[in-house]
């Protein structure tokens, strides 16, 4: 239903980060980070708080500038773009936030419309596109409600619909499910999975919830003190092949959780 724009770049790497460093007050927040994300991949970014996850995500969409290194989105270097071009490129990157960041003054439709207005979509097309997006995220019947009348899960659906407005190549999720209860988390993860498989949207997600990693991530990057200490596939992680102690501690937390919750087949479900 929603067509993916074809990328101008021929590369299969939607996102490529080369030697990225960023310092605040003389201290490295990110140090010499390099990785690339293939089209259609779901990459999980984990690490302790303060490890630099959010800073990295902000660098990926140009909200923060980098001190050295390059961020290439669909082959285009963010730091060489003019402000206008950066704004246009940002529209190819969907953002989903922990705190939803919806306008209280606008309805569900109005909030989705905001993204389309930013994209410069004419009014007539906006109404049609809003209907598509509402259908996609399953919010039919809630169009005229205000955020204050929605549950957390519904608010995040609005946030996701808004993020998808511009047919983004990449969806960046910063703790998208951390403010939600388990049930809403599951439904949002299912939605993200659908968006990935059916629309082919590449997803980079920050999370501290191992359940999110287990359900979604094809690949996991572990960030510690501004460096990537582990870059491991989902399968390898579930086979217990993680090398770094931090990753292992995350995994042990995962299996402990599974036992605590007594969820049948949890540990063997893999990724």
């Amino acid at each position, binding site marked *: 239903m929603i067509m993916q724009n074809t990328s101008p770049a021929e590369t299969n790497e939607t996102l490529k980060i080369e030697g990225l460093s960023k310092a605040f007050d003389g201290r490295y927040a990110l140090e010499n980070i390099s990785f690339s994300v293939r089209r259609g991949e779901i990459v999980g970014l984990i690490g302790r708080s303060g490890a630099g996850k959010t800073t990295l995500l902000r660098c990926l969409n140009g*909200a923060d500038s980098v001190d050295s290194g390059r961020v290439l989105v669909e082959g285009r270097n963010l730091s060489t773009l003019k402000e206008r071009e950066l704004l246009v490129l*940002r529209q190819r990157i969907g953002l989903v*936030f922990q705190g939803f960041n919806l*306008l209280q003054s606008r309805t569900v439709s109005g909030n989705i419309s905001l*993204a389309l207005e*930013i*994209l410069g979509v004419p009014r007539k097309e906006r109404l049609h596109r809003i209907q598509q997006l509402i259908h996609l995220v399953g919010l039919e019947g809630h169009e005229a409600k205000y955020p*204050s009348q929605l549950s957390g899960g519904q608010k995040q659906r609005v946030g996701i619909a808004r993020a998808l407005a511009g047919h983004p190549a990449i969806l960046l999720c910063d703790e998208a499910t951390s403010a939600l209860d388990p049930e809403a988390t599951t439904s949002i993860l299912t939605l993200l999975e659908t968006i990935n498989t059916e629309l082919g949207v590449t997803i980079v997600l920050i999370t501290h919830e191992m359940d999110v990693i287990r359900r979604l991530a094809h690949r996991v990057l572990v960030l510690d003190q501004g460096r990537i200490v582990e870059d491991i596939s989902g399968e390898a992680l579930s086979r217990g092949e993680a090398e770094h102690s931090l990753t292992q501690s995350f995994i042990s937390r995962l299996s402990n959780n599974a036992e605590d919750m007594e969820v049948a087949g949890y540990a063997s479900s893999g990724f």
Partner: protein
Amino acid sequence: MHRQVFDLFFKATLATLEMVFASAAIAVFFGLPLAILLTVTRPGGLWPVRPIGRMLGIAVDLTRAVPFIILLVVLIPFTRFVMGTALGTAAAIVPLSITAIPYFARIAEVSLKEVSPELIDAVRAMGATRAKVVRSVLVPEALPGLVSGLTVTLVTLIGASAMAGVVGAGGLGDLAIRYGYQRFNTAMMLWVVSILVVLTILVQLGGNWISARLRKNFI
């Protein structure tokens, strides 16, 4: 009440309303952009150009520091230049506006500052221009507070407009001074005060009602 006296009150009330609402409209027209500039130029704001923010802040505070009764007199040459006369209802709109602009700007600034910086950041990150953020996020999200601020400004203007009677402006203040004070007509004075009280209450209730309706959808 005698017909002629009633006419006197009716005209005076209309003149007061004219002064109050005209100067409030001017206060919003100039004060809201001023408040937006004061807000966005703050450190970490949407457009953090400190010198502009500081200069505007000083200008606003200086104007606010001058007592209205003195401003009325000081502005007489300026009023004469703008309106052609320094006397009457229309002329009083000039000093009332000058005092209301920085007043409303400071009150509006408080509401604008309360809009979540995270939300503004998010909409910027979605690719919105600064102008779009101001138009579609900053002002609409602050609207209930802005309406409350306008209500406070209107109430203050009702009081100030009565003061403008001193320099020959029309309206209820003029009536109170000429009849109530200079001719020792206490009944007249009480009537003026009663009308001012009723006007103030009506404006306050109306403002509260609109603000509450707008706030209904906010958490």
